[in-house]
């Protein structure tokens, strides 16, 4: 068989796969993006309430505490999960080179997932929150989310098991690990917090562990999976070091489950738990630098592509975010620093850097790559993508400065001055709170463009063109790059 006919068969197979996943993938991305906009709006509201508590006080139920819980939970269960599901389904189908057969089941589960997020959000706002950080959705929701997750994850697992042999790529390792570990993590957290009546303070420790396990063993592996797919695909070269990729994978799997309980240092739980958590979080630097350098070395030499390709630009930015996250993981968990950061906004900043600066940026990259393929249309407006990218980067920088750095330098230091009045410590939060307002306003603008652009693509209003949408216009030429069908990569 000639090379040309092989290429043509491959392109045909890719098109068939993309069509088979088109509906669930676009559904998850679009509904996730809407929830992201809702979460960001709640983030703006919460940060304003922190520095101006009388803001919209007429809406009695929308207090700072309730709005904060709503903001975090909608971000996690509305955006992050659905963006992850869309990415998982597309990547696994493409990598197993088989059409996805369970679109209808997954779509029904996806709709119910959204209903559950919506009802749970209302639950928080009317005062039915559980009061457990990151698990504030009313108790009824966790069993439903777990069942719906199984309806989404089992078909993806099946997709992998019925593949026709061949090499299992590193992206698939990350996907399988995340898919396998999530029910264990989620079930453990909810059973120990909501079902078993035991130590209340250990329940709080389990809740802290859950946050980190969810970020580092579910969300980040899926984002890494996407980065390991996008970087070689767009640059047209293999991963820089496959051994390094495997090392990074097993390092994350070995270190991730120990992280989280450092948030309870000084609490009356076995003293080794917070220190094991702090040590493991410091060690996260290893998988962070392994994955980060591997992706950047794969891109090295193709800097122009990283500027032109929306997918690669977001992937590169997310990878730099990952290196920053690894650096902060070391610094924030040193015993001398933890004293001042344990109960400041720094922890929130670290979590937002992970969820927005790394996970979301890498997933945005994946979405800019995937959507033209599943819709058979090109992105409409490079200007929208450029705005989305630039403003998102400003938001991430504002998270780092406002929440992480100011959190340590201002309230972190003030809280330890025990002979000063509490007023000085409380006022030390204001700079971070104002910065957070700027952060979420930036993110709101960025994501309104993203959401609108994505909705147009879902409505099949994208460009019907052979030219991929690129971000840099060469010397007055087309902004859409050289000729080439989107299915060819």
């Amino acid at each position, binding site marked *: 068989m000639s090379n040309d006919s092989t290429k043509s068969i491959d392109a045909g197979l890719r098109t068939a796969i993309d069509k088979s996943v088109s509906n669930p993938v676009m559904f998850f991305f679009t509904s996730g993006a809407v929830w992201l906009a809702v979460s960001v709006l709640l983030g703006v509201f919460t940060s304003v309430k922190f520095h101006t508590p009388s803001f919209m006080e007429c809406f009695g139920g929308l207090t700072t505490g309730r709005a904060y819980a709503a903001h975090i939970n909608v971000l996690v269960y509305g955006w992050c999960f659905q963006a992850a599901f869309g990415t998982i389904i597309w990547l696994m189908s493409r990598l197993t080179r088989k059409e996805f057969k369970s679109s209808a089941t997954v779509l029904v589960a996806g709709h119910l997932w959204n209903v559950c997020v919506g009802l749970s959000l209302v639950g928080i706002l009317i005062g039915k929150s559980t009061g457990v950080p990151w698990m504030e959705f009313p108790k009824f929701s966790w069993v439903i989310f777990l069942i719906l997750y199984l309806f989404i994850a089992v078909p993806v697992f099946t997709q992998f098991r019925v593949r026709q042999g061949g090499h299992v790529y590193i992206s698939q390792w990350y996907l399988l690990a995340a898919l396998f570990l999530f029910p264990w993590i989620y079930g453990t957290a909810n059973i120990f917090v909501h079902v078993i009546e035991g130590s209340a*303070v250990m329940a709080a420790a389990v809740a802290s562990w859950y946050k980190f396990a969810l970020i580092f063993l579910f969300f980040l592996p899926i984002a890494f999976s996407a980065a390991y797919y996008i970087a070689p695909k767009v640059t047209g070269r293999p991963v820089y070091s496959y051994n390094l990729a495997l090392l990074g994978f097993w390092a994350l799997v070995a270190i991730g*489950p120990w992280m989280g309980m450092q948030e309870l240092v000084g609490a009356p739980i076995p003293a080794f738990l917070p220190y094991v958590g702090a040590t493991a979080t410091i060690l996260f630097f290893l998988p962070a630098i392994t994955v980060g350098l591997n992706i950047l070395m794969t891109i090295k030499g193709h800097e122009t592509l990283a500027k032109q390709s929306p997918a690669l630009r977001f992937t590169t930015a997310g990878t730099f975010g990952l290196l920053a996250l690894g650096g902060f993981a070391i610094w924030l968990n040193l015993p001398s620093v933890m004293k001042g950061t344990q*109960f400041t906004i720094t922890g929130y900043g670290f979590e937002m850097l992970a969820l927005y600066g790394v996970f979301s940026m890498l997933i945005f990259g994946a979405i800019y790559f995937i959507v033209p393929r599943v819709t058979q249309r090109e992105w409409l407006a490079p200007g929208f993508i450029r705005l989305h990218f630039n403003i998102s980067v400003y938001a991430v920088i504002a998270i780092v400065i406002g929440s992480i750095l100011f959190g340590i330098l201002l309230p972190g230091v003030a809280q330890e001055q025990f002979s000063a009045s509490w007023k000085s410590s409380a006022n030390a939060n204001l700079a971070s709170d104002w910065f957070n307002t700027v952060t979420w306003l930036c993110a709101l603008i960025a994501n309104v463009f993203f959401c609108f652009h994505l909705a147009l693509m879902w409505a099949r209003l994208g460009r019907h063109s052979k030219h991929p949408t690129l971000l840099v216009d060469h010397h007055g030429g087309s902004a859409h790059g050289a000729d080439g069908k989107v299915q060819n990569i």
Partner: protein
Amino acid sequence: MTFQKFILGLVVAFGLPWLLLIVIPFGKMSNLEAVSFDEDEDGRVGVYSSDQQHYQFGSAVYGANGCYVCHTQLIRPTYAGSDMWRDNWAGQNKDADDQDTRRESVPQDYAKETFAHIGINRVGQDLSSVGYRLEKEAASLGLSPEAFIYRRLLAPRDFVGKHWSTCPSQPQLFKKASPFAKSQNVVTFENAEGELQAYVPKKEAKALTRYLLSLKKDNQVPASMSYKPAK
């Protein structure tokens, strides 16, 4: 690597920390052995137990309204933070008997709750022993502790010296009433604009108030349980 070996690797890598960090400590901490006072060291005999009252509904209202977003309930040992030395945070600097009751938190302090509201941020003060502070402030204004807390929940910044506070008002815990209603349940006060306001506390406000007043986590613990360094 086969799929089975891959899954086995995941099970080992995740299962070991799962057992050591979650299952075993949770089991042990849920069945703590009773600790006895030592007559020589503690000046008393008997077995230690928490005297924290059982206000689960109040604790649930505290969680549902997100109080833990700005307030903590944890007095850390001095190696982890200086909480012990903040005035009246860890207990009473001087109680009625002129004793310093301050101490770090112990697991039994949370024994009667389903979830320990350790908290995530300290925009406001630690509430481990806020009951004492609320009673003192109420007395200084000539109010009952309950009436004082209702006013604080409704208008947290309308008190002398508290205008800087960023604590939000919690009107959702109250029903509006006529300022001229003659009922003991009605909380009346003038707002910042000088208008007379009247509210009736809902059951959530009453439960939260009882819960806050019960927060006095400073009962004497055996010396073997708590290290209390000299300042």
